[in-house]
């Protein structure tokens, strides 16, 4: 892709960094660097798992299922409930609940 000066301004806004007259220099550098990344298009990676960490250790997640067996556990420990909502007591002062 071909970066424009407006893209640099948008990126600097997203990154919370103001650029004071540095846009033109950065634009040239970033065009060249992003152009270099195109070399990765030579690779076929559809069937490749991404490597997200520094080791091959993987996180163990529960199944991404809606009917997780632990769902709702702990509700009975809350003294005040309002429909589906649970109320926690205030940290300071008296509870109005």
């Amino acid at each position: 892709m071909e970066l424009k000066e407006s893209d640099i301004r948008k990126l600097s806004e997203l990154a919370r960094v103001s650029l004071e007259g540095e846009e033109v220099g950065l634009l040239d550098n970033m065009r060249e660097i992003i152009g270099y990344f195109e070399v990765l298009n030579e690779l076929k990676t559809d069937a490749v798992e991404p490597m997200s960490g520094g080791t091959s250790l993987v996180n163990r997640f529960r199944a991404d299922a809606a009917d997780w067996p632990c769902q709702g556990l702990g509700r009975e420990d809350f003294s005040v409930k309002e429909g589906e909502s649970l109320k926690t007591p205030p940290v300071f002062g008296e509870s109005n609940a």
Partner: protein
Amino acid sequence: MLNLRDLTIKSFREGLLNKSFSTFEITKFFFDFAEEKNSELNAFLSLHRDQALEAASKIDVRLAEGDDPGVLAGVPLAIKDNILVEGLPATAASKILENYSAPYDAEVIAKLKKRGAIFIGKTNLDEFAMGSSTENSAFGVTRNPHDSERVAGGSSGGSAAAVAAHMAIGALGTDTGGSVREPAAFCGVVGLKPTYGAVSRFGAIAMASSLDQIGPIAKNAEDAATLFQAIAGIDPKDSTSVDADYHDLTADPDLERIRELKIGIPDEYFGEGLDPEVRGEMEKVIEDLKSLKINLKKISLPHTKYAVAVYYLIMPAEVSTNLARYDGLRYSPPPRSGRPSLLDLYLYNRSYGFGPETKRRILLGTFALSAGYYDAYYLKAQKARSLIKKDFDEAFREVDVILAPVTPTPAFKIGEKANDPLQMYLSDIFTIPANLAGLPAVSMPVRGREGKLPIGFQLMGKPWREKDILDIGRLYERL
């Protein structure tokens, strides 16, 4: 007259135990030398004489009482300024942290203190460890002790220069894409990047968390092994740290065991772009290893050419995330007038506090992670990283260690690449793959280069096999 040049951790300990010098005397001696030499090299951003002399006196008292304060008792070390030492500055060579003082010790520092080490000062680096020359430091470039017109390398250039110029016996650096090994090669000292997870990163200022590792810089491979042994190990405060068995790293290397290993020579590291002088030295290293009757074998790591692109997508993405926390309000607020909005304040402070290379990488990372480009760039790079790791997995089925150059050229001139970031990035081609794959790698100075610019060679090992690469390095040093 004491010759600092001859002092290694081992000879220092011998001198201390047989009372050739006291810890206080030698610490003072090191400061007298380092304070003068630093005006020439700018290796240290801060020197801490009072704290060091106080710690040295305590070591002397313990020695006088017949106590052994530890294997590193009194050893003067230099610490990269992105590693926290309680009560000392930790600027990461950035204006945004100019007045920050560490409120606690990094885990590696706590371990070194427990073993009696003395900290001379905090060393220069490229801002937040981003660079290959220390030219990106907000506080001036570090000069190469072998040629003051040339860079010391980076990002741990201050640590490598301090050890090479005998201002400290050893040092700590951090290595995200070669930042320990490249300056070690340029300055003619030994630099070890441990396996990812071998050393706790608690208290190291984060740059790119899936790649960063703290590693030692030393005068020889035995000292590097001693320092690594002191700092390695699992730490509950760093969930990526691992409890691994490294065996006795400081035991005398067993040549017969090493002869049972096989060293791979990857074609891709000896191709186009390698300086003829570096190539010639690599060929001599190969001959030297053959003379030890170590087995060598040609191998291929076919995805090496993608490593720079992969690294310069993944690393800035992590940089832009890690550096989002700096608002510039606490440690070095720039002068301002009026009552700006909070957003304007952030924009202004971060613009004032970060240098050009840091801004470039934050923007690159923001680009790579932004909607519409994430899959095409960041996810693609993560997948290509898997392929690079797979190359190593396959190679390590055939060989135990991989030999390669550390850098395509010897140390370049100050300013030579400063205006061409892509050329600077490409000079990391041989060091980046070990970080992407999480492997241990040591940079060893090629022998016989007295009076010339140093050149380094690199030994990459299987995960947790630091002993293999350090033992080969130690045997090479004896030739």
